[in-house]
């Protein structure tokens, strides 16, 4: 073959995920965005001249998605008849979900191929796909171990498609089982091994990659979702290009504070730059280190002021220690009962004889007192 074979490599759409850990009001757009990722993949394929879209597992979030989820997904795939979709069962939607796969089989549009058995598939003449579907949620062996022994036509491109971890960083429970050999592309003579399971993009050498999810779904992987546009030419290294497909930008930032650092400015540095659409951002700020009463009050006020701009904005102060300065206590009062109360709380917050939880409560009470007395009446 003279023309490169172009495909879109994606995975882990997790259609049907409901984001129950986020506020109710935020979930609708996130759910819809996952469905829209199918269109984004279509756009990416057309933009790169790809004819096939390989979904390396976990297209669905679980084995029993609602009818609406899988029916609408099939419609979206069928709406692009110029492209072929290849669906590989992953651990979330393994072949053990017989009903799901029989439903998909029954209602699949003509351009959808369901990979329900391990073995070679001729995509086009000269291009063979070696796919390793997951029969069960957990698998006790490397499902790609048969690929080295699978013969294909001389000179044909050999593509691998699998779902799972190549090391113990799986997104899934039961990590450690069925680890895919990291050198599988080399041992099986694959021109490209398309993997799914890891929601962030990752290249494992020139011929192996995790595509990541096309629409991010958690704070673990910073940024928007993306897919990989892969161009394969026999005898050459694959040309792999990242194409951003996601709408929502997820980020979990660590804000490390020390008493001398202005927490408001430090927070500002973690915010998306000019031109960003905060409405499409989900930002979680995990604060640690130490801050004074004044610093904490300022940080909270700043967070309260900034929060509404973002689709999700969370300030996690659990790791922040309170630095109690005399100046802060002086701001509460120079003497009298208020000062005595503040000093009592400060002593409790620093008392090593108390449990960590009790010290934190005392520090919290002191911060609260500070905020009461700082707020204008």
């Amino acid at each position, binding site marked *: 073959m003279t023309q490169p074979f172009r495909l879109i490599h994606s995975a882990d759409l997790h259609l*049907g*995920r*409901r*984001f*129950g*850990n*986020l506020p109710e009001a935020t979930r609708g757009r996130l759910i819809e965005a996952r469905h829209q990722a199918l269109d984004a993949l279509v756009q990416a394929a057309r933009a790169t001249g790809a004819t096939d879209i390989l979904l390396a597992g976990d297209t669905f*979030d*679980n*084995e*029993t*998605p*609602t*009818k609406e*989820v899988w029916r609408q997904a099939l419609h979206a795939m069928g709406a692009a008849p110029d492209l072929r979709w290849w669906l590989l069962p992953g651990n979330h939607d393994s072949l*053990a*979900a*017989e*009903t*799901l796969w029989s*439903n998909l089989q029954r209602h699949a549009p003509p351009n959808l191929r369901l990979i329900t058995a391990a073995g070679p598939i001729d995509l086009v003449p000269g291009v063979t796909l070696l796919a390793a579907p997951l029969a069960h949620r957990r698998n006790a062996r490397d499902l790609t171990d048969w690929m080295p022994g699978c013969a294909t036509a001389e000179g044909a491109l050999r593509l691998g498609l699998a779902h799972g971890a190549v090391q113990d960083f799986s997104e899934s429970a039961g990590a450690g089982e069925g680890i895919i050999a990291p050198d599988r592309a080399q041992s099986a003579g694959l021109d490209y091994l398309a993997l799914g399971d890891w929601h962030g993009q990752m290249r494992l050498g020139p011929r192996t990659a995790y595509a990541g999810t096309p629409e991010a779904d958690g704070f673990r992987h910073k940024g928007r979702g993306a897919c990989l546009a892969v161009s394969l030419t026999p005898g050459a290294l694959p040309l792999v290009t990242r194409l951003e497909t996601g709408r929502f930008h997820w980020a979990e930032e660590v804000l490390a504070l020390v008493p001398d650092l202005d927490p408001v400015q430090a927070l500002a540095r973690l915010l998306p730059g000019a031109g960003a659409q905060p409405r499409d951002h989900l930002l979680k700020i995990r604060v640690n280190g130490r801050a004074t009463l004044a610093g904490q009050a300022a940080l909270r006020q700043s967070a309260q002021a900034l929060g509404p701009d973002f689709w999700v904005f969370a300030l996690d102060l659990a790791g922040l220690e309170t630095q109690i300065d005399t100046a802060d206590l002086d701001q509460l*009062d*120079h*003497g*009298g*009962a*208020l*000062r*005595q*109360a*503040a000093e*009592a*709380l400060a002593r*409790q917050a620093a008392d090593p004889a108390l449990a960590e939880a009790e010290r*934190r*409560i*005392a520090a*919290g*009470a*002191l911060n*609260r*007192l500070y905020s*009461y*007395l700082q707020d204008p*009446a």
Partner: protein
Amino acid sequence: MRLRALTLTDVRQFSRPVRVAAMADGLNVLSAPNESGKSTLFEAIRALFFLPHTSRKIAPLRPAVGGNPEIALDIDHEGVAYRLVKRWGKGAIAEVWQGARLIAKSDAAEAWINALTLPADEGGPAGLLWVRQGPADFDQGSASENKAAQAMRRDLMSSVTLEIEEMTGGRRMDRALALAHEELAQLVTQRGAKAGGPLDLARREVEALDTRAAALAEQSLALRGQIDKRRDARKLLADLTAADEEASRQQRLIRAQTAFDAAQRHAQALQTAEAQLVSATLALTEARRRQTARQQAETTLSDLGVKLAEVERDLAKAGAEAATARAALTAATQALTAARAVQTAAATAARAALRAAARRDEGRRHAELSATLARAEPLVAALPAQRAAARTGPDAAALATLEAAAQALALAEGLAQAAAPHLQLTYATPEVPQARLDGQPLPADTPVALTARAILDLPGYGTLTLDPGAQGADPARLDKARTTLSALLASAGAGDLAQARSAAQRRVQAETALRQTDGDLRHLVPHGIEALRDELARLAPAESEPQPALDPDAAQATGEQAEAARHKADTLLEAARALAQRRDEAALRLSLQAEALRDKRREAATQLADLPEAPGLAQALAVAGATHDSARADAEALRGDAPDLAASKATLERARSVITAAHAERARLEAELAGFEATISARAGDGVDEDLADTRLKLGTAQNVLAAHETEVAVLKALIGALETAQAAARERYFAPVLAELQPMLRLLWPESELRFDGDSLLPSALVRGGREEALDTLSGGTREQIALLVRLAFARLLAKSGRDTPVILDDALVYSDDDRLERMFDALQTQAADLQIIVLSCRTRALRALGGHALHFETLES
């Protein structure tokens, strides 16, 4: 501020202007009866300070006859004299004059006056300290007044020391506490999470999500279980319905049936051979038994003959020994009979000796008793006469009674004589005829007692009947004494007392003789003479010629020897009898044994006679053995190549059951699969796993929210606790200056007492006396009004010390106090009045005389 003079015009009962002037520093007293207008004065001052001149609520001030109330108050404020004037109703005014200069009017005047009573933080002194009539509660005004008073107290303390505000935290503390309480109240109440509050909702959501997650997990698990089961069922059904499996099951059945039929036939042949073998075995066994039986019978018969001969020998020997023993027994019997005869004779001789000795003793006794009877009989014969003499005449008691009766009569007679009138006649001459009293000559010049009616015969004059009547004498007593004596003498059989005494003496002598006779008789015949006679009658008199005496002891010795001989003969007889019995028994046993042996020998002979002869038995045994050997060989041959009938039957049944079970299993699996399909298709599209994953995420989030709310509660409680603890400590210091002022006055009334203050109202809450805390509302009216007054005085002194003089006006504030307590309250007032202006309004004119102070009076002015 000091009040100096007050003028009222058309206020209540004062339709004509009145004035109370010359209010001085220190203690002022306006003492007047009820209805004289003291309370009007109090209300007027109050109205001047607190009732705007534009107010229409002036009914309490307006006099019954109508008019527009007007009040003018002269004061000194910061060293300057002012006059405050207010009039309500028509022509209402409010004015402030400084001398002749009007410095404010209307609203400006109201503001000027208000400033005098405003709290410190609003630019004015703390206001007047009012104490109203009655048992003054501290907060007894309207809510707004009470609130203002509380603010005043706080401000008062703030003015006393700048540290107070900082110590208690002041309004910032209040604000922080209020915010903390407010936020806490959103979450919890005293009883736990506030219903419908965030904490409550979070808990409920966690519970609901937890429940839902569990239910969904169960549904999911059930669905997965159904899918797994369906997969298993499908596989089982496919295996079951495969064509080769079905053919295999049928072939197994045919093979099993064929094998079973062959095994059954072989089993029947074997059964026949086995029966023949059993029969031959039985015949052989019987032949052997009969041969053995004949041999045993012959041996037994021989053994019995030998044994019988031995026993018969022993029997002959035993018979001889028995005869010898019986002869010895006869001899012993005869010896015993002889010994018994000797013993009987000895016993008879002994009894005769004893009877002779007894007869000699009886004769001696008879002689003794006869002599005694001879002595006793004369005494017995004399007894009746002696007893009669001893009963004749009065005894000692009767004589004593007679003596007493004679004395009583003598006494009665003496008394009669002494009590009777006496007649004494003196003759004119010795020649005159002698008078006669009751016929007896009446001697001259001799008093004669007249104890009864008497007739005095006066010769030449006639008779004079004299009747002494009953005066002086006791004739009944005299008569009774005489009658008694006469009766006693009659019963004693005596004519007079001398006879009676003689008879009594004779009776004593007779009694002595009788006792002597009785004594002799008791000695001779202690059991009576009749007993003596009876015993004598039972005894035989001594024989004139006694029989020769036998020696009883010798007779008894002879008897004992005879008894010993008889006993020995007894013993010998028993031994002979026992021996004879044993010998007889031995002979008898041997005789029985011989008889038994003879019976057995007869029986053995009979059995032997019933058996065939030995040669016949040997031939029959040989025939049976040959038959048995043949039958056994046949059976073993069949048994050796016999198929396993039970196994082939089991194989056949198993083959049949496999086919039956396969049909049943197929039906069951098809039904089960239909059920699985229906359930799975119904549940799979519900998104159970989606729901479960979502619910678990929600649960995690809800748990985080709940933990955050619980932390929030803990934080707020910690903050409130810290603030309240610090505030309580500060309040202790807060009240120190008040207590410093109050304590000396308090102890004028109650030594060693203390007053406790409420932290919120800043008012007294309890009195501690003698270590016992008493809530203020449990104290008597008098005590409460005294405490109220002292507290106000303490606050007033603090104000004065801070440069804000405030008059204290007391309107009959001590109506419940007794005189003693009143005296001590006066001491307190006098002590405080040095720095203050105190105005006392009271109707207790007399009681207040002791108070001292500057006296105020109502002064009526010309209109």
